[in-house]
């Protein structure tokens, strides 16, 4: 018999929402041909809580509680744009010490978030130990947070005009112990994965996206910088006391999984640098400025974007007077980064799709809000 054309049917695979490596309740419907992915359809919304609507029913000071729960791995970084937006509407001056405290805890939170990425990415690649190492170090950061803010993940720490509590008395000792610990932890992490041949084979060239595409899709943060675009709002649109601090904005050129991984490891180092500078430069003074007792901003609207560990976290705050915000729109970095997933996943393997999703480092809490 001559060649007979075998009729084949596409196989669909539902990855998620209960899949161990979809980083939350994310669902991908994969069309696969053997091990290769033909098509991918993302489904989100399983964690949709309507944060934007709920915020319209809460008083201004309560909204931070909700924003903590959007990107729950970097809660402090989410509170920052909101309080900054509110400060702009209210025209409140923030004392310098408060600004330093904010930067300090934000950068620590960035390290904690990147460590989480590192651990989860290692687990996606099949290595179990990176996860534990990352959590070992992250736990130390959270101990520091417990001492400073009282919370481990949900801090509700930033206030209009400053921060809720001043740093505890023993913060210097705690921090000087924490920094070398983290430095050593990052070295451990690097030695485990960064040069590992299996890991290199798995990640280099996988999930590539060009700089032009990345910008078109609105990627921000480490995902964009891994493509070689040097966009960091801390530097390009300086806010808080970042102009006074010295740090590099690392970039990579290929824009694949490995670059996104390595970039975050490098960012942890830079964040540590910032933390060290905060430790040195921390001025004395009040940690909370002069704030009206009742927060009732004038009519107006403001958009503030800050550099979250995952990219630009923006708050568009509309006030029409009164005790309640009129509209709080959250520009969540993961939400935008996830749009480019399809672009990255073209023609990859099932094993790669897990890695690519991990390398974008999404948090479903802020994708769905």
């Amino acid at each position, binding site marked *: 018999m001559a060649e007979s054309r075998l009729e084949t049917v596409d196989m669909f695979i539902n990855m998620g929402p209960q899949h161990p490596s979809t980083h939350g309740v994310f669902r991908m419907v994969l069309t696969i041909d053997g091990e290769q992915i033909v098509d991918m359809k993302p489904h989100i919304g399983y964690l949709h809580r309507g944060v934007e609507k709920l915020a319209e029913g809460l008083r201004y000071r309560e909204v931070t509680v909700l924003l903590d729960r959007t990107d729950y791995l970097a809660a402090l970084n989410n509170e920052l744009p909101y309080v900054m937006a509110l400060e702009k509407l209210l025209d409140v001056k923030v004392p310098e010490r408060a600004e330093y405290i904010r930067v300090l805890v934000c950068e620590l939170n960035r390290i904690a978030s990147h460590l989480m990425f590192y651990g989860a990415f290692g687990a996606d690649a099949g290595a179990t130990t990176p996860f534990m190492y990352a959590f070992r170090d992250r736990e130390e950061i959270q101990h520091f947070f417990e001492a400073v803010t009282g919370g481990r993940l949900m801090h509700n720490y930033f206030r209009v005009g400053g921060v809720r509590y001043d740093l505890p008395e023993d913060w210097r000792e705690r921090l000087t112990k924490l920094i070398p610990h983290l430095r050593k932890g990052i070295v451990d992490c690097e030695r*485990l994965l960064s040069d590992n041949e299996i890991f290199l084979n798995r990640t280099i060239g996988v999930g590539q996206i060009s700089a032009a595409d990345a910008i078109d899709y609105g990627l921000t943060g480490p995902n964009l910088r891994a493509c070689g675009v040097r966009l960091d709002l801390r530097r390009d649109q300086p806010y808080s006391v970042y102009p006074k601090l010295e740090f590099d904005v690392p970039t990579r050129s290929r824009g694949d999984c490995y670059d996104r991984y390595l970039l975050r490891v490098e960012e942890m180092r830079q964040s540590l640098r910032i933390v060290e500078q905060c430790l040195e430069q921390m001025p004395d003074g009040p940690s909370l400025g002069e704030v009206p007792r009742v927060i009732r901003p004038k009519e107006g609207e403001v958009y503030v974007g800050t550099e979250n560990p995952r990219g630009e976290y923006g708050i568009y705050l509309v006030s029409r007077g009164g005790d309640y915000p009129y509209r709080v729109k959250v520009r969540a970095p993961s939400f935008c980064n996830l749009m480019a997933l399809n672009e990255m996943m073209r023609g990859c393997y099932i094993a790669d799709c897990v890695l690519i999703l991990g390398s974008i480092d999404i948090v479903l809490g802020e994708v769905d809000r």
Partner: protein
Amino acid sequence: MLGMLKGLMTTMQSHFRKPVTIQYPDERPDLPPRYAGFPGLIWDANVGEPFCTGCQVCARFCPTQCIYVTMKDNPKVGDGTSKRRKIVDEFELNVSCCTQCAVCVEVCNFDAIEMTHTFEMASYSREQVMNLQDMLSMKEKGGP
């Protein structure tokens, strides 16, 4: 192969380091003073009544609306032992709802509520509610 060997050496080294975990129910975590567990009411030992006057500010501001408070006339005002004209009658906190955000502590005008160190919320029922007595004893149980 070198990269893999490096990784293998790292894991080998850490095998001989001291474990960082604690054996939880036997060993208790070392909580810093600010640690925010569930809120608890503070007892005014001078007068022998809670500081809370049942003004309901915390219930109004609670983002998850897990607090329920009522007030009553303070019986101790009559005999002159207390200056509080109103006092808390009932205080309830829905444990499964409370997110430990500490908004109630912040808005309280009488500094009558504080975040305690009680963080264990496992219970047999979904609707577990802490009433006034629990809220008061919380401070003593796990207090700073």
